[in-house]
């Protein structure tokens, strides 16, 4: 309990900054929708359709209907998801590796707690942090999308997208913790975690650009919860849910196993 409290306090400031960032992101993104709406949404759709496919992929539009608020939000969602993933990966690697980086591990592990318990407290604290981040994104999204929706029901769709984002956050959180648990070099853990994230994101864009790469879609979690797919199908693809579960459980096991067995770097 004490480690949990300590971590909540230590991460409070960063969580507030990230929350403000995501609110700003949603607000400025949806702000652009209002100007788009004024210009007539359909013309925007037509304009996007004329663009080369690679450009569409980078913008994340694809088959989304930009004339509806939720369709437009679907484009924005990609960037919210990337932001949430960066937050989760950095949080995950940092919450573990900072003790070695700051050499406070010699203080912490001499206390009467096992490494497993310490890890659990930290994971729970990180989990609460990403839940808060998710809820902030959810609340600001619902608030702002509804403003443009003219009474249309959007909470359901946004809840679904946020559900996908949460699973994405979980995956990147454990990618972060697994890297920090596996590698002895605490200073490199966070940059490695964000590097992997960037790589996976670029793959997901590349898949959108080039149909030949479609087979790679199982290797990047960003493809698991694609707004285009979720909004069209109205739910999650069971295969991707299964893959997410395997990755999450696998990396959680990696986190615990390696952290318990390896020498602390002091």
């Amino acid at each position, binding site marked *: 309990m*004490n480690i949990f409290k300590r971590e909540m306090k230590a991460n409070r400031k960063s969580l507030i900054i990230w929350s403000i960032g995501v609110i700003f992101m949603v607000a400025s993104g949806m702000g652009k929708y209002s100007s788009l709406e004024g210009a007539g949404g359909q013309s925007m759709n037509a304009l996007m359709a004329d663009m080369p496919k690679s450009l569409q992929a980078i913008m994340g539009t694809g088959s989304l209907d930009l004339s509806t608020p939720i369709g437009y939000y679907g484009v924005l969602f990609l960037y919210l998801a990337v932001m949430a993933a960066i937050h989760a990966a950095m949080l995950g690697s940092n919450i573990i590796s900072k003790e070695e980086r700051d050499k*406070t591990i*010699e203080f912490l592990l*001499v*206390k*009467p*707690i096992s490494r497993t318990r310490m890890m659990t407290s930290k994971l729970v604290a990180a989990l609460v942090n990403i839940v808060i981040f998710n809820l902030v994104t959810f609340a600001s999204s619902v608030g702002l999308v509804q403003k443009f929706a003219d009474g249309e029901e959007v909470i359901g769709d946004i809840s679904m997208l946020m559900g996908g984002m949460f699973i994405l956050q979980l995956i990147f959180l454990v990618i972060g913790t697994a890297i920090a648990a596996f590698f002895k070099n605490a200073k490199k853990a966070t940059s490695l975690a964000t590097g992997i994230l960037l790589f996976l994101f670029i793959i997901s864009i590349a898949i959108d650009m080039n149909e030949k790469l479609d087979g790679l879609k199982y290797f990047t979690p960003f493809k698991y919860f694609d707004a285009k797919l979720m909004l069209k199908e109205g739910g999650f693809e069971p295969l991707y849910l299964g893959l997410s579960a395997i990755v999450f459980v696998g990396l959680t096991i990696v986190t615990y196993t390696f952290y318990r067995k390896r020498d602390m770097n002091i």
Partner: protein
Amino acid sequence: MNVIEIKNLTKMYGKARGIEDVSFSVEEGEIFGFIGPNGAGKSTTIRTLLSLIYPTSGSATIFGKDIITAAPEIKKEIGYLPSEVFYYDNMKVMDLLKYSASFYKKDCTKRIRELADIMELDLTKKIDDLSLGNKKKVGIVQGLLHEPKLIILDEPTSGLDPLMQQKFFDLLEKENKKGATILFSSHILSEVQRLCDRVAIIKDGRIVTVEKISTLKENTYKKFKIETNSTIEKDLFKLDGVNQLEQDGSTISFLFRGNINAIMRKIAEIEIANLWIEEPNLEEIFMHYYEKEE
């Protein structure tokens, strides 16, 4: 009863040596010195005992329990002061100490105040703003606040001024009288000599000897220097156990190990002007052990 028992403990960092085949035990209630130069493996041994790192081979027990499988339980009764103290910089001293205390299931507030009083530590300051010596004081309070049965100190005096060192030693002696066992690692021999009952000497990752401080001194030579009124034949002192016999005018000096009566009888035979018999200090004994190994 042995509080610490180390059996053939070896720790390799890849191919690099950490410690090799280290064995010794620390009895309940004693102050045990652990001496050796920098890089000899003192910290490696201690960190292995605390399961911060794991041994390559060999085993050790503390309070009769295995250091790896029973680690969390053992640590309830261990107080540890690392050679360099690192804490969460943005915390206040009191918050850090309370955080530290929260891991032990007892109320330590009174003890924190007591210790901070003795060590003259300001509890309201931020860790970030503390000098090296003051951080060390935080470490001392932090290591002793739960009244541990075993206190492990890794070069504890670096950064402390002599006055504080004195207070710290008094504090340790008090804890020892109350029943705490102390493992004291250092490369400064005088402090070990002052405080410890027994010592283990470690060199290049191996234990050279484990000895009572008193035996360590007994078993070694004494330094003799004799000044005579008239020049005498130095061969008079060519006895068993005499070493480095030197003559400089009317003074003769040598090292002697053995029954001191034999020497005293020889000295009684001659007319002397002055006589010095010196105990070698631990420093010299220590060097002796080191040179012997090379």
